Structures are given as C-alpha cells and as structure tokens.
C-alpha cells in the first residue's frame, strides 16, 4: 500500500484524517474561543486537503471548486465569529468559553 | 502529477542536468545580490535626494558622493549591542525580522529583470545552449504570487510590535495590520484590471504584451488602475504619506522601537527592499518592464548593447523613476490621519477600483459580443455613477444617524 517512491492520494487522505483528528481534539480541549476557532479552521483545512487530493485522484475539477467555496465561507464564518467574540469581550474580562454559559449578556 | 511544481521555465524541461542547475543557482545568487545592492543604493539615493529637496547636503563622507554611507551604517549597526527587552516574547522577537525580510526577497523573484522581448521572442535568452528567462521564477500563478507575498509581509511588522512587550510598538502593529489588510483589497482589484486586459497571470507574459507605449497597461487599463495601484502600494509599503505604522512623532519609532543592532538593520533592509520590489512590480505591470520604449513601430534602441542586456537597462531606468516618485512623496506629503487613511481606502479606492474593473469587464464582454463600444461604456458608466450616488447617499444617512443617536464604533 505505502510504496516509498511516490506519495499516492491515500497518503494525503490519511494526513487529512490525522489533521481533522487533531482539530477535533483541540476544539474539545481548549477553552479559549479564539483557539477553538483556529481548531475549526484546522478541520476545514483537513477537509479541503482531502477534496483536492480526491479531485486529482478521480480526475474531476469539482473538488477544487468545492474548496474554493469553502474558503469563501470560512472567511465569512471567521468574520461573524470574531464579531461575536468582540461583542462578548465588551462585557467580560476573561476569555474562556466556560464563562459564556448564560445566554443573557 | 509532478509535471510542474515550481516554475514554468523551459530551462527545467526534460532532465535537469548540471548546467541548468548551475544556471539556476547563479540566478538565485544574482537576484539576491542585486536585491541587496539595489537596497543599499536605494537608501543612499533616498537620503541624497531628500537632502537635495530640503536644501541640505546629505551623506557625503563615505566614498564618492557618500555612496558607501549605507554600508558604513550597516557595519556600525552590526557591531552594536543586541538588546532583547525584558518583557518581550523572546522567540517571536527573534523571528520577526526574518519574517519581514524573507517576503521582501521572495517577491523580487518573479520580476523579469531583463531579456529580449522584441520580435516575439518572449523574453527568452540562450545561456550555454539552454533557453531561459532573466527572472528567477515564473510561477503558474504569476502575479498572484506577488499578492500573496505582500499579504504575508504584514506578519513581520505585527509580530515585531506585539513581541516587544511595549505599548508603542503594539499600537504600531495594530495600525499596520488594519492598514495593510484594508489596502490589500484595492491593490488586488486594480491588479485585476491589468489581468483582465492582459489575459495572463505570468509576469513575463504581461511584459510581453506591452510592446509599445500604446500597449502599455497604463494606457490599456485607462490610467485609473495605475493611480489606485500606486496609492495602495505606497500604503502597503508603509511609506509616507501612509507611514502611520512608524510615525515617529506619535509612536516614538513605531513597531521597531525596541529593536536595535542587526535586527533593526534587517527591518530597515526589508522596508527598502520592498520599495524597490514594488517599484519594479509597478513597472512590470503598467510600464512594460524591460521592454524598450517604443512609439508605434519606432523603437528607441540603445546602440552597442545586446538586446537582452538592454532590457535590464530599460528596467533600471523605469524603476528609478518610481523610486524617485516614492522619495518625492516622502519629501512633499504630510502624513495622513488614521480616519482619513481608512476613508481613503474603503470609501474611495476600493469602490473606485471595483467600478473601473466592472467598466473594463463590460467593455470586454461588449467587444466579444460585438456590441457598440460607445453604448456599452456609456451605460456602464451611468450604472456606476448611479451606484456611487447610492453609496454617497448611504454615507450621508449613516452620518446623520450617527450624529442623532450618538453611536460610536
């Protein structure tokens, strides 16, 4: 399966799975919402990588198109997420998700 | 799958043997040295010209006309004590100067530094029986590479300011990040106009299309993208009048206040290197790069020099004009206030470059569909003017509302 000469797309897919796992662990372990956000970006990137790898494996450009849209949506998501964090930080001094359990600001 | 990973260059086709490898190595070395020397001379040039504009003499002791002044300063800085502030983040503090320097050199790699673009040769020259271009790399994404590099250049400044563990550098860093991200959009949109006209991303390809003054992209894109690009590039470089990042009077020294010795020299080097690179990029995109100046079919030819080297001479002359313009800006224009900076970027440059891009795109579509160019231009212009009117009305309403209920951001 793993020949030493050329990395096949399996290698990339395995790497993307590992990256996704690391991202998941980060979201579950860290308490700083900014870093949780970064871990979500890691997971998105893992998925992007697998899309591109599969796109060249099955010789279909659509995988790259999906990644393009994921990039745009990720940008929008980060903008909204950081806006939320900024407006939460106006009322609190510490930045951990444990303090955000109440819905009322 | 690995047909072309690094660059499009006929040199790297087929088996990579020793001669091509050596040529590439020599090119890398040459680009590096040219970059360093150009930076050194740029610092001297700026000090000398600005001294002239302010009725001073400027550097005149080290070497003829003080031309070795930068070298002397560099050696002096090198032997100064290297301080790392007590409250700094040591790793980032050490890393930041390199993060500033490396993008500056990388961007230089895609500038065509010479070559013969006449008679459809496309800038190819023959070295030791191998065809190649006088440019270090021509990546498939071409100009987007320059855009990417300029967008990561902000890290050096941000991290330098943050890691110093001091107030003023931090303020400089926050200003830098907001400013550079804001102007990146205008830079990209005016670049889009050039790409629309050229139909290619490769810098060599863009140069190749600009054979005479009528074909220069500054004319082909209708002047406005050039003006926007020049302003946005000045802001990206943090040069006056957009030097809020290191405004001496407000922030002591800006992001590099806590830096001393060789680390400070690296920031200094990166800043001037970026100026040289950006001037070269402007020349490449809008003024035909190494192409000789030609009006119609008559070409201004410098006699006794082979065409390939003549390209380098032309590039040098054109770049010098822009370096002079940058020094001129610095000597003439007062610094922008921060809100003026943001207003200019978001309310004028971005809508302006977007509107011009749409106009060019509409003309392009009209030409392909065989519509009357006049009508297309008029209709698009009317739509754009209506859009701009709406924008102005929105700004007016927002200002009135802000004054009424006293919202603040």
């Amino acid at each position, binding site marked *: 399966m793993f020949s030493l000469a050329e990395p096949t797309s399996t290698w990339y897919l*395995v790497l993307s799975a590992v990256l996704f796992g690391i991202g998941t662990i980060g979201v579950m372990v860290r308490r700083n919402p900014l870093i949780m956000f*970064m871990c979500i970006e890691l997971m998105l*990137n893992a998925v992007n990588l697998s899309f591109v790898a599969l796109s060249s494996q099955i010789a279909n450009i659509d995988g790259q198109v999906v990644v393009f849209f994921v990039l745009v949506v990720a940008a929008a998501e980060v903008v909204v997420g950081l806006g939320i964090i900024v407006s939460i930080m106006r009322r609190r001094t510490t930045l951990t998700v444990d303090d955000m359990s109440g819905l009322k600001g | 799958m690995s047909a072309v990973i690094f660059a499009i260059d006929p040199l790297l086709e087929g088996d990579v043997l020793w001669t091509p490898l050596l040529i590439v190595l020599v090119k890398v070395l040459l680009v590096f040295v040219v970059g360093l020397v150009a930076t050194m001379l740029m610092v001297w040039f700026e000090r000398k010209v600005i001294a002239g504009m302010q009725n001073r003499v400027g550097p005149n002791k080290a070497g003829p006309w003080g031309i070795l002044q930068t070298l002397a300063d560099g050696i002096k800085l090198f032997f100064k004590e290297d301080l790392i502030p007590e409250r700094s983040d040591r790793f980032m503090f050490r890393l930041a100067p390199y993060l500033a320097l490396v993008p500056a050199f990388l961007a230089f790699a895609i500038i065509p530094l010479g070559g013969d673009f006449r008679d459809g040769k496309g800038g190819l020259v023959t070295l030791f029986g191998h065809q190649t271009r006088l440019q270090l790399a021509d990546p498939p994404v071409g100009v987007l590479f320059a855009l990417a590099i300029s967008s990561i250049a902000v890290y050096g400044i941000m991290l330098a300011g943050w890691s110093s563990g001091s107030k003023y550098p931090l303020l400089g860093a926050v200003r830098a990040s907001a400013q*550079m*991200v804001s102007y990146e959009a205008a830079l990209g949109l005016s670049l889009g106009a050039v790409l629309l006209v050229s139909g290619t991303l490769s810098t060599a390809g863009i140069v190749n299309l600009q054979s005479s003054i009528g074909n220069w992209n500054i004319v082909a894109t209708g002047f406005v993208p050039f003006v926007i690009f020049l302003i946005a590039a000045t802001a990206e470089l943090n040069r006056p009048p957009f030097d809020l990042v290191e405004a001496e009077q407000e922030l002591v020294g800006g992001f590099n206040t806590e830096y001393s010795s060789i680390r400070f020299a690296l920031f200094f080097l990166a800043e001037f290197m970026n100026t040289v690179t950006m001037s070269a990029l402007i020349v490449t995109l809008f003024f035909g790069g190494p192409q000789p100046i030609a009006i119609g079919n008559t070409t201004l030819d410098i006699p006794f020099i082979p065409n390939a080297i003549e390209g380098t001479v032309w590039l040098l002359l054109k770049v010098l004009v822009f370096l002079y313009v940058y020094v001129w800006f610095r000597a003439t224009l007062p610094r922008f206030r921060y809100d003026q900076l943001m207003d200019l970027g978001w309310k004028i440059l971005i809508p302006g470059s977007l509107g011009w891009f749409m106009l060019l795109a509409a003309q392009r579509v009209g030409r392909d569909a065989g519509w009357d160019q006049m009508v297309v231009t008029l209709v698009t212009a009317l739509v754009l003017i209506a859009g701009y009117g709406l924008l102005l009305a929105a700004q007016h309403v927002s200002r009135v509302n802000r004054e009424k209920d006293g*919202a603040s951001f």
Partner: protein
Amino acid sequence: MELFVFVVAAAMVLIGALGVVTRSNPVHAAMSLVLTLFGIAVMFVSHNAHFLAAVQVIVYAGAIVVLFLFVIMLLGVDKAEDLSVEPITNQRPLAVIIGVGISAIVIAAIVTSRSGLGPSGKGVNETTLESPDANIRQLARVIFSDNVFAFELTSVLLLVAVIGTVVMARKTKSVGTGK
C-alpha cells in the same frame, strides 16, 4: 522529489496543528496555524491546484489569521493561558480518545474503500510550459458556468456576514451611558 515535498509539507502541517492545540499563548497558536496553512498550500501546489494554493495564502494566511491576531492584540487577550488546570475531570483523555477514534475510523475507511475510486471525471488540467495557467482557466470555466448561482450566493453570504458583524460590533452610546 515528490516524496520529499510531501514529507516536508506534512511535517509543517502536523507540527503546526499540534502547535495550535498545545501552545498556551494565542499568538503562538495563530503562528502555528499559519505554518499549517502553508503546508496545505504546498500540498495544493503538488496537486496542480495552483490557484487554490495562492488563494489559500492570500485569504487564510493574509486575511483570516491577520484578523485573528488583530482581535487578539486589540482585546489584549495575548496572555498565556494556564493549561495545567483541567476544568472537567477526565476531559482531556476522553477528548484524545474521541479525536484519535475519529481519525482511526476515517483512515480505516480510506484504506479499505480505496479500490473503488478510479478516474471518473473529465480530468484535471495539468500545468505545462505551453499553458501555464491551465488550472486557473479550467477552474474559472467550471465556477462561472456550472456553479454560477453558488458563486453569486457566496457573494450574498459575504455581504450578510459583513453587515451582521457591523451591527453586532456597533455599540450605541445610549447603552453605554444608560440613557
């Protein structure tokens, strides 16, 4: 050659990812994220997705992470977080087990089902000397023909995001002074 590129890029990706999860200082975590993003961009290039690699660097490294850093510095939350306390008992071991489990399941799926996937599409253009921007041309053709509605919708999405963020981050004086 490609093996070398893969190994270096994979090392960048994994070191960066572990850095994001383990570094206590948010700025260090953000810089680790940049390392990962560059690693991914290199992998995109080695898959002939040149345009995506450029966009990855411009959008992710040049805008998104800069935005992160901007918020971190502006809010002054750049102090190192104390990672030695574990707020919920056994949270970390459980999280690691779940994460590793997800990875393991996905890897198992990849390894077992790989045989069924052969080239089925119309092909991905490779960059050659004759057509250096083949990838960009092909991508543009697909985005602006088959996916044009999705493309327009993303622009609406961006607009909504911008307006929403401005409304959220806007603070009125009447709230602040209690009028």
